């Protein structure tokens, strides 16, 4: 292999990206050295097993990926803004919509949600950490280095270019000869193992570590949504593991799974991919439903309407999510019978989802509504998501789908469910729980400006795509002629994309502004919350709860405030047992990164060495003896006094 095959060459934009990557890396290294922060970074972040810090790292990584994926989106909109545009060539456009999809779903939406659940779940159930703190750190570093591996493809070797769904035979070495799709199979594999471990960790945490008295039906709705999401992860991700392994075998080891000859079956890929891919959609949407349930109940000052039906509908959605995958490829030649069955299962999902929409509306009814930033996102979500849902039912009808399949109508539909559904939810959740982690609220005025920019621009960007799709514009086309008449609406969409960019920049500026000027929150409960996480001081001490709370009903903290009853017994503090920090998960992630990178280029010897290092980190883990440490009563007293001031 020559150097010009190794690095991506010939594109001014890519050279600029290389220069910026090098400059940013140099700046980070120089900054850390100058301010003598290496030790701090290693001790407090890279080796941490604290669920709150891991959550924060997930969210930072997700925000970075949001901007990477956002730049991809802007480039696509810019390329299609005018007919016959020459900004990007066909290959580059293919790579950009592929990485946009992968990054936004797997390296933005999911880690953002996993970050929020890391921060919130142990606090909501009254636990001191997750069930397996070390495994949690392993999950994060596998995700992180998987994401880095995929991003590396931009400058080294070339990005995947067969769409985020990587259909065969397009993704085979015959039609996609660069190493791009090797990056796809290996980076998603590494990150996917991390996600599976997260699913197991949170299932066990929620089942086994709830505060005394918190039965399943007394759990906050967000905890319920994560419990169900964890089950979906555990059942869906192994399918992705197999699909990606078969893809790697086909591309790099000459097997015939998805080949066009020797008995191979390209449709097998589509089936395997979507058996994972459709539940994946619900992995990112159910937690969002949970976040909205918390926010709407808090800011309407009412208990959540229809708690039981909320739980039942989520369970129903999780089961149906495994029975609808064929609707992603109705037009790929199944019989009428198959398409009909999957049409019906798909439309059936609208029923439990509709139940949830009405429950939120009834929660709002006669509530004393506070229009805070998180609440604005929740309120905007309901109508916009309903548009997405209704167009989804249109697409669910197999015979009608032949009309819209693979058009911009579909693109508009899934952005209408994913952006108000997942993206609004994680932004709302991030505003909502931010004071819990950092001890101050984000500025409300800036937050509302960002909200209006995002909510309005979102509709300006994506509503025109519905019309374009119905007019016949297919997705993934990198340019079109003027005579199609697609130009003006695409230009309008571009204007919306610029508005969205401004909104997201305001969101980031708000972090800077609030860090410098926002008033500290001393109560720990700035929103007058309902669930246990608000009973802790902000920022939350390492051990979360000085004494384990005792729960008697749903919304325990709310009632303890209203009825003036304590959440804990009168007993004295006891020493708290906590796990120790360790660098092994980080080193394991680095080893996995190199293993993946060498595998991408089929450099077997280095790959085997890196693989042995991975095994070595596992061996280290099994032989190490680490019993954690105890936090003494005096230290707990000191911390509680400092955080709660005069209250205690």
């Amino acid at each position, binding site marked *: 292999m020559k150097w010009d095959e190794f690095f991506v060459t010939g594109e001014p934009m890519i050279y600029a990206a290389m220069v910026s990557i090098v400059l940013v890396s140099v700046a980070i290294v120089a900054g850390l050295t100058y301010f003598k922060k290496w030790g701090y970074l290693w001790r407090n972040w890279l080796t941490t097993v604290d669920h709150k810090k891991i959550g924060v790292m997930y969210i930072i990584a997700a925000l970075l990926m949001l901007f990477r994926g956002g730049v991809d989106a802007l480039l696509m909109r810019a390329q299609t803004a005018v007919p016959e545009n020459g900004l990007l060539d066909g290959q580059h456009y293919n790579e950009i919509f592929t990485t946009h999809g992968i990054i936004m779903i797997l390296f933005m939406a999911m880690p953002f949600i996993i970050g929020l659940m890391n921060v919130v779940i142990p606090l909501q159930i009254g636990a001191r950490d997750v069930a397996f703190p070390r495994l949690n750190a392993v999950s994060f570093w596998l995700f992180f280095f998987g994401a880095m591996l995929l991003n590396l493809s931009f400058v080294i070797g070339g990005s995947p270019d067969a769409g985020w769904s990587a259909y065969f035979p397009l993704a085979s070495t015959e039609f996609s000869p660069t190493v791009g799709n090797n990056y796809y199979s290996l980076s998603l594999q590494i990150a996917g193992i991390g996600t599976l471990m997260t699913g197991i960790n949170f299932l*066990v945490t929620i089942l*086994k570590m709830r505060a005394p008295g918190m039965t399943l039906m007394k759990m906050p709705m967000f905890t319920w949504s994560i419990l169900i999401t964890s089950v979906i992860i555990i059942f869906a991700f192994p399918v992705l593991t197999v*699909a990606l392994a078969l893809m790697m075998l086909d591309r790099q080891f000459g097997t015939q799974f998805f080949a066009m000859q020797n*008995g*191979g*079956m390209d449709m*097998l890929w589509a089936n395997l991919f979507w058996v994972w891919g459709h539940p994946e959609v619900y992995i990112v949407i159910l937690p969002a439903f949970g976040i909205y349930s918390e926010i709407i109940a808090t800011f309407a000052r009412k208990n959540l309407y229809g708690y039981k039906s909320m739980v039942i509908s989520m369970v129903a959605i999780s089961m149906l999510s495994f029975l609808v995958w064929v609707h992603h490829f109705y037009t790929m030649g199944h019989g009428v019978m198959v398409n009909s069955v999957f049409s019906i299962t798909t439309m059936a999902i609208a029923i439990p989802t509709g139940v949830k929409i009405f429950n939120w509306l009834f929660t709002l009814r006669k509530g004393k509504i506070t229009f805070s930033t998180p609440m604005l996102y929740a309120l905007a979500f309901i109508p916009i998501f309903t548009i997405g849902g209704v167009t989804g039912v249109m697409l669910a009808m197999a015979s009608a789908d032949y009309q819209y399949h693979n058009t911009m109508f579909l693109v508009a539909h899934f952005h209408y469910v994913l952006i108000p559904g997942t993206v609004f939810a994680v932004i709302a959740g991030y505003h909502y729980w931010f004071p819990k982690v950092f001890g101050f609220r984000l500025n409300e005025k800036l937050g509302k400006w960002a909200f209006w920019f995002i909510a309005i621009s979102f509709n300006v960007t994506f509503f025109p795509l519905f019309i374009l799709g119905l007019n016949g514009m297919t997705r993934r086309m990198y340019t079109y002629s003027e005579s199609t008449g697609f130009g003006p609406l695409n230009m309008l969409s571009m204007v919306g994309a610029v508005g969205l960019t401004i909104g997201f920049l305001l969101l980031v500026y708000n972090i800077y502004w609030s860090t410098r000027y926002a008033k500290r929150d001393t109560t720990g409960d700035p929103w007058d919350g309902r669930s246990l996480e608000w009973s802790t001081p902000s920022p939350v001490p390492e051990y979360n709860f000085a004494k384990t709370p005792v729960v008697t009903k749903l919304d325990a903290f709310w009632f303890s405030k209203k009825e003036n009853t304590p959440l804990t017994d009168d007993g004295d503090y006891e020493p708290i*047992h906590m796990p120790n920090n360790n660098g092994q998960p980080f080193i394991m992630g680095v080893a996995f990164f190199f293993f993946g990178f060498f595998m991408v280029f089929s450099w077997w010897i280095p790959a085997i060495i890196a693989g042995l290092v991975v095994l070595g980190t596992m061996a280290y883990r099994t032989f190490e003896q680490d*019993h954690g440490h105890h936090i003494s009563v005096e230290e707990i007293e000191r911390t509680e006094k400092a955080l709660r001031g005069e209250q205690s």
Partner: protein
Amino acid sequence: MKIDHAKPLEYSTEENRLKILGFWVFLGAEIVLFSTLFAVYFTLVNRTGNGPAGSHIFELTPVMVETIVLLSSSFTIGLGIHAMRIGAKKAMMTFFGITLVLGAVFLGVEITEFVTYVHEGATIQTSAFLSSLFTLLGTHGAHVTFGLLWGSAILFQVKKRGLTPETANKSFIFSLYWHFLDVVWIFIFSFVYLKGMM
């Protein structure tokens, strides 16, 4: 750390109980993984292209040896856990040792079998059927290989540190893993080999 002496050693602490439940959940995910591989195999089993079908290459003798060896190893690890429960460290280590040796024999026979297939011109690249066969068997074999390394590491720890709540917990979890591999093999034996030879 609170040790509950009413429970067996491997369940005696809160952390131990969490780990055992977590591993059961992990085995649930493993069931999905192998189910997917079986589904792929059943989809492709008749798509032999220009290569041989299963009935041409499968031989009963090595497969029977593998089956008997692996089933026996599941029995011996069960005896090992029983010995662990009554605190017989030496007997436990012996049974674990026998289990690992049987696992190694299984692996040896399986590798020989693979070599035979390849010599008969049936490689992983020949046809979709053979790709799925080698992948399904190979994934199981890779699990056994990993199990040999993991089991040896645990055996070493038991020898050095004795039967503590940690080592007992690890040994018990390893036995769950080993039984699981046996269950998968029963499906491979029935639905890949026996059905393929009919």
